[in-house]
């Protein structure tokens, strides 16, 4: 019986994030529109977009190969699995131990690898520009992220996210310099990885500024729907990660019962709403930077992460 409940909760979380992801994107868009004093589309617009894309035919470029058709499914699967492994409303779920934080970062790397390849597949110049810039951004963002993982695991003694969340919730962590640095690094990485302003603009179709959009330029129909959904899931993943590590309050523990789970879900929704609001606020208050400024931005994130880890190597109390 307990096992069945465990499976149900795990399955429930996978479904929950899948359903929530477009809503989060819609929420961020709505807030951004409000901040720009526009009315903006409804919160449900991303769902409508996805449904419309799913019903449309796929138009493949003549030079597209099998990889181009397989890649959306692979990307979607990798990001969905990665997002499902991040504790959202409850820690210590059945399959949380399948992969630790390092593996989650690497799973996102798998998705990016195939997305960049798909960008190169048709053989157009925009696909190439997107793929090349994405890999440049990733080559700095991924180490920065891993340095943040180092800081955390030095503090909590584990790379297991569920245990980290539990540690943050129960132990006397207090305010620490290293954690602040790690938080800053993670936020910078999250902005870069999700193609948000100032690194990339999710709404742009101005040729020379595109990164993510340039890679998916040739996609249409259901393939594009999957990629859009995967992008929404990735944003949700990073916000869940920030919530799970730096604000684990309200998170239920494994087998805590229905009420605790419901409370956990409510807390999780509140965290997402707040995170989305802050993201929109930040995005409207800065300008997009030149592509070759991105390395300074992410280099700073890498150094912050390294500094945080080094501080902990020096003293466990910093």
């Amino acid at each position, binding site marked *: 019986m307990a096992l069945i409940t465990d499976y149900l909760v795990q399955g429930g979380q996978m479904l929950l994030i899948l359903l929530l992801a477009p809503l989060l994107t819609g929420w961020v868009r709505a807030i951004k529109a409000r901040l720009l004093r526009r009315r903006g589309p409804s919160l449900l617009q991303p769902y409508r977009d996805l449904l419309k894309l799913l019903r449309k035919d796929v138009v493949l470029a003549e030079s597209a190969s099998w990889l181009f058709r397989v890649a959306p499914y692979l990307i979607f699967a990798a990001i969905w699995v990665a997002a499902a492994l991040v504790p959202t409303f409850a820690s210590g779920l059945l399959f949380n131990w399948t992969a630790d934080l390092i*593996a989650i970062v690497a799973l996102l790397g798998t998705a990016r690898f195939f997305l960049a390849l798909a960008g190169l597949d048709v053989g157009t110049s925009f696909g190439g520009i997107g793929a090349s810039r994405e890999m440049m951004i*990733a080559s700095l963002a991924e180490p920065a992220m891993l340095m943040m993982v180092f800081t955390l695991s030095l503090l909590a003694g584990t790379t297991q996210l569920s245990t980290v969340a539990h540690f943050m919730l129960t132990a006397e962590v207090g305010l620490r310099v290293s954690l602040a640095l790690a938080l800053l690094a993670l936020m910078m990485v999250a902005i870069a990885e999700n193609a948000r302003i100032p690194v990339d603009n999710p709404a742009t179709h101005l040729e020379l500024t595109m990164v993510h959009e340039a890679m998916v330029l040739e996609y249409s129909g259901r393939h594009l729907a999957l990629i859009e959904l995967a992008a929404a899931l990735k944003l949700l993943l990073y916000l869940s990660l920030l919530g799970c590590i730096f604000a684990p309050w309200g998170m239920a523990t494994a087998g805590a019962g229905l009420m605790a789970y419901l409370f956990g879900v409510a807390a999780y929704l509140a965290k997402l709403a707040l995170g989305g609001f802050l993201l929109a606020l930040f995005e409207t208050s800065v300008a997009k930077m030149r592509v070759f400024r991105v390395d300074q931005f992410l280099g700073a994130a890498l150094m912050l992460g390294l500094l945080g880890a080094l501080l902990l190597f020096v003293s466990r109390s910093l």
Partner: protein
Amino acid sequence: MILSLLLSLPVALLTVSGAAVFAHRHPGRSRGIYSATLVLSTVALCVVLIHWLGGHTPATLTLPIGLPWLGAHFRLDALAAFFLVVVNLGGAVASLFALGYGQHEPAPERVLPFFPAFLAGMNLVLLADDAFIFLFAWEFMSLSSWALVLAHHREVANVRAGYLYLVMACFGTLALLLSFGLLAGPQGGYDFATMRAAQLTPGLAALTLVLALLGAGSKAGLVPLHVWLPLAHPAAPSHVSALMSGVMTKVAVYGFIRIVFDLLGEPMAWWWGGLVLSLGGVSAVLGVLYALMQHDLKRLLAYHTVENIGIIFIGLGLALAFQANQMYASAALALTAALFHVLNHSLFKSLLFLGTGAVLTATGERDMERLGGLIHPMPWTALAFLIGAAAISALPPLNGFVSEWLTFQAILLTPELPQWMLKFLAPAVGALLALSAALAAACFVKAFGITFLGRPRSPAAAQARETDRYSLAALFILAALCLLAGILPGLVVDGLAPIVGLLNGGAHLTAQHGQPWLTLAPVAEVKSSYNGLLVLLFMALSGSLAVLLIHRLASDVARRGPAWDCGFPESSPMTQYTAGSFAQPIRRVFGSVVFQAREQVTMPPPGDARAARLEVQLQDPVWDLGYAPITAAVIAVSTRFNVLQYLTIRRYLSLVFGALVLLLLGMVLWR
């Protein structure tokens, strides 16, 4: 019994070599030779595996050959058995590949005799149990591979590669010779058992370590001793490149482990680990940065070998640092990570070099700027190469990720180390490792994307055909092994436990096969765990769920049309991104510091119809700072002494007389 069986293998391989020399006019000789090496390598692989499963008791054998007062000592222990598996697996797969690939060899008489000899040399190094046999086999391995590097000796670049390789190989063997000399001591106990029992003073032991690092590191391609590797490995035929990069560098790693972990015994100072660790970190990042700047596919792969050797040495350095502080449990994790990466790298690097061989046969090109679109005519080669590329980029659920994950876990244990220097070094090396993993992914997006995806950039690429069955079989065996090692890492870790125990005073990781769902949890599940099998299963499930739902409920029509490209599709394939343009952002970010990269755009004035030019200048810091001054000094000295060649007989006689007088004077003063 087992040892005589294994020793008969090099003998049989040498016989095959001899046969290849004499049968050089026979039309079917290439098939025959490669079939023979395939059978012999497979037999050796099976024998070692059976021995392994049957409890792996060490076996020794002494034969009355070699040095008269020493004899020839041979020994098979867990360490040698593991590396024998790596060597013979690589040998078998390369032979299988060559059954098809070897048909296209323009000068088979320059490859066939040396290929079995090269395999024999590598096997013999692993079985040697005294310094004489070890060095003899090592030099034999070097020279036979040198001959293979010069198989296409009419190309000027290959001649230079061969020359540089020969110089570096001599230097490496000299360093190893000296380190064995120190280990043997004044009594000259040249068998390994005596060396193991002998106690060195800390100073001499440190000198031995440095010499072993120079000797084995130059063969393995550790920065700054790597300069020959990216020239020599690509020069050989592709199946030999696969052996040199995937397997021979592992024999070098074996040499280092044998001398430092086995013969020297416990590390005596913490800085041993620090030295190896920092060299590993620098190699990892520099290797991949060099690779990113290349557009020759084989040279790119060769530079990646430098990177992966760096990752292996990071693991070994951590193990030394932990051992120096008696932290054997942590050392076991670091050693397991290093040995796991040895296996992984031999699998995916062989796969990638063989895939490049298939591309080379199909198109005659290895310059990526003239390839493209090969996924259409060669779908199977492309699939296998893609698996190899994803594995080397450390992407789950493949094998490269597991060993890098284990290395990260070992780095996370370093705060327990008492030395401050190591405390600072470890996170920095961790950052370098993370950087190299991310850059490797960028590099293989480039390598696969430019070569196999897009549209063909030359007629040769447009007319390519899928490669033959033997080559495909070899590629898919390796690809399957990459996947298996990635999803069942627990089995590999358990298989490595006896070796780790042997090198680590008996301590190894806890058995993994008892873990639920075959999870890998090297320290404890609450600390860190990874389950490749479940990750693969979940990805397969959610991917097929998406396929099922979408094709059931939504549209499943796909039409073909011209590419969109923002409304301005350009028909010429030359407008695609090239290898050079793909790497440009990274060259700008990292290359301007490391390689002093300079880009110069020459635009013709308005109205002038000439093409604009972009020139990129890169400088190799290692060559400019390390090797160029040495070369300049050698040339300066030899130019000075060149006059000695053109003296009269009178002058030569007086020189001889003067030298004699000087020597006698010296003798008198010495007394």
